């Protein structure tokens, strides 16, 4: 099981934090700091596995990370996951981000962290691997984008909740 997925930059600023087990807010922040501390000390040429820190660690858990330019992608997993497999998973995640953002860079993650969450949700769910086919993921994301755009702009008197599957709107933008 994947316990947490963290993305932070070379200075430890969090760019995405997703926890698949309940931790209090304080603990979450501590975990981010501790993980950054452990990971930033590593040389470039060592292997990509670390025993977890005190908070999210324990003998069972490992940190598997990859360093891309200014960002660290860290997956904290337990022993039921294949370490080499997770390395590939991180690569797929980054390649998918690249496809969705067109030459993704840190700024994209900064300004569109919500999108990153959506993409991640199509790959990993409840701490388990959901889908690894990039095309499927991107197709889904595009479909959601379309859905978003097709929803007409809202005005203040929003009609009450509709229970129908189709959202039928009358009228367009209120000027």
């Amino acid at each position, binding site marked *: 099981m994947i316990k947490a997925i963290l993305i932070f930059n070379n200075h430890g600023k*969090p760019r995405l934090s997703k926890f698949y087990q309940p931790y209090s807010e304080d603990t979450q922040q501590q975990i981010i700091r501790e993980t950054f501390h452990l990971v930033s000390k590593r040389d470039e040429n060592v292997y990509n596995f670390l025993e977890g820190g005190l908070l999210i660690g324990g003998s069972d858990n490992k940190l598997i990370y990859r360093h891309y330019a200014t960002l660290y992608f860290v997956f904290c997993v337990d022993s039921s996951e294949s370490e080499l497999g997770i390395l590939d*998973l991180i690569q797929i995640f980054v390649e998918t981000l690249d496809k969705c953002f067109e030459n993704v860079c840190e700024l994209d993650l900064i300004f569109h962290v919500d999108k990153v969450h959506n993409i991640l949700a199509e790959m990993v769910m409840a701490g388990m691997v959901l889908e690894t086919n990039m095309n499927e993921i991107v197709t889904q994301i595009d479909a959601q984008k379309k859905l978003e755009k097709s929803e007409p702009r*809202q005005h203040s008197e929003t009609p009450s909740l509709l229970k129908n*599957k*189709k959202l039928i709107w009358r009228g367009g933008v209120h*000027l």
Partner: protein
Amino acid sequence: MLNRKGRRWGADACVVGFSGGGVGAEFGDPLRERMVVPSLKLQDLIEEIRGAKTQAQEREVIQKECAHIRASFRDGDPVHRHRQLAKLLYVHMLGYPAHFGQMECLKLIASSRFTDKRVGYLGAMLLLDERHDAHLLITNSIKNDLSQGIQPVQGLALCTLSTMGSAEMCRDLAPEVEKLLLQPSPYVRKKAILTAVHMIRKVPELSSVFLPPCAQLLHERHHGILLGTITLITELCERSPAALRHFRKVVPQLVHILRTLVTMGYSTEHSISGVSDPFLQVQILRLLRILGRNHEESSETMNDLLAQVATNTDTSRNAGNAVLFETVLTIMDIRSAAGLRVLAVNILGRFLLNSDRNIRYVALTSLLRLVQSDHSAVQRHRPTVVECLRETDASLSRRALELSLALVNSSNVRAMMQELQAFLESCPPDLRADCASGILLAAERFAPTKRWHIDTILHVLTTAGTHVRDDAVANLTQLIGGAQELHAYSVRRLYNALAEDISQQPLVQVAAWCIGEYGDLLLAGNCEEIEPLQVDEEEVLALLEKVLQSHMSLPATRGYALTALMKLSTRLCGDNKAAILEKMPLVERDGPQADEEAKESKEAAQLSEAAPVPTEPQASQLLDLLDLLDGASGDVQHPPPLDPSPGGALIHLLDLPCVPPPPAPIPDLKVFEREGVQLNLSFIRPPENPALLLITVTATNFSEGDVTHFICQAAVPKSLQLQLQAPSGNTVPARGGLPITQLFRILNPNKAPLRLKLRLTYDHFHQSVQEIFEVNNLPVESWQ
């Protein structure tokens, strides 16, 4: 203030979602503008936060914005709600409190707009969990969305349910999820399957609900569904032996799926570096491992396939290696044919040579697990394992060390020890202790000759003396003592080692003992085994004196040096009458240390008795020796009166600073004990200075916890002068670890009654201890 898009004031009346630039209304309706509070878009807030130069500034910006967000929530503005929540989630990631957004998540989830729901569900995953009562309130919305929502909405609901769904929610919603398992859309089905896994984790009884659909799901061809199904079956099997037995019958089907994947050839759909869906392959292999463990029939069914995967997988990239590695683990875990097991271990051995560090790491870890069960197979890869000792990464070399030590046997011990000793010289400090004790242990078990054994221990003591266990000294003296033919060799080597370095205490102790015992052999000059060395008495004595006076020497070490000097004093003079200092017979193994100390005190006592016996020239020679030892007291008596009282001669001999108390006339006093920590005082009155009292304070620790930050302070009556010397340290390790000693010098010219108050502070068992007390029962001899 306009943002860089220049549309801050106008854009807020219309909301199109927060990704990408929104099109602003060109003409703001003045009525609308008065009613709608202008709020930042998410990107604008992010920019503002990035613009802050200091942490304090960032906090200010965020707090201001949070106030706006709170106000907006209070006003119940539905139009901007999702944007407000998005901003709140952003600052939550940075560590700021966001609990006041919990209710808003509920409202957004209940909205009919996809954009709202998406943020709402994300918020629920980030802000709500089982510990908040509010979480149950979304159950109804999830139920509606699961049964009536469009596919993307169903996906959102399932995602959230599987992330933060509590046991109660899972029980409530299990029927809905079950229905979705068999729906046509693969997108929803694969999510429903993983949600089922989560539900079973929370409510194990639901296994009965989700077990039946698995058979049908396995026939699907969609990889996402297959992946989820294998995960689900794995979860079911791990939880219940009955389920495990039930699913054994799908082994042939799993084998078939895996075979198809492996032989499919290059397909763009799910392949990664030319390997078809490695994730699915790995999951299947994992499930096969569980099903085949301890089950002959299933293991047999898998044999051929495993062999096929093991030989055919492309290992040039990580994906192939991931599959191969999983295959190896499965082979080793089930009842596989012997040939297959050897193949698997060989694959691991090949992994060790891979240029990719990750693979080497994973291989070393697995070999360590296998070395007990498949020892001979792993032995074959010993050379490669030893190569890994040279790894620069500490974790990797630690594993290599463990594995190397496990592989030492009588036939490879010489070669292995050489490698391990080379490693000891260059290894990082935290591995030293393990390496040293590993080497010593292996040497004891497999030493081919005694000389080799002595050499090995000597080498370890020289390289990592401070990291060896306490019994190493005793072991070595025992070993040397028992190897008569090697006495000359040992003493010579130890002398050389000592001459180079007197800081490694175990080495110094052994060397001092050896020199004392076999000093005559040392001075005799020749020895076949090593180059002849001319050493004369002066050098030997000078070396021992250096040890005695060095601040690095522990009291025990000084004891050894002292004893050595006493022994030499008779041996070098060629006097055989002092039988008490004859060469020691071999001592019993257990407690040689204690025996030695007993012998030392016995010898000292006997020497004092023997002092009046020797003839004149004997005595002067003895005292000439003393001149060398203590130049300061040399002028005090020369020649000294042969003091009939035994105590006197003894005290001359031992009147040196920082010397452990002899079995002196003034008895020791235990002044303090608390939870295994003891404080002892021992007293010396140097005869040439009757006003002076030397007290040695010794702190020992027999408890299970270390004593740290130990400070001892003292106070005496005004008529006395007190001088405290620096203590030997501030830590006393647990279970009889090295004690702390400290010397007090008290000048009492008026022979006033001695009173002593002590203040101890230290940390023990994670508590600070402070004790202030006056020492009672001070012996009269200490001041009269």
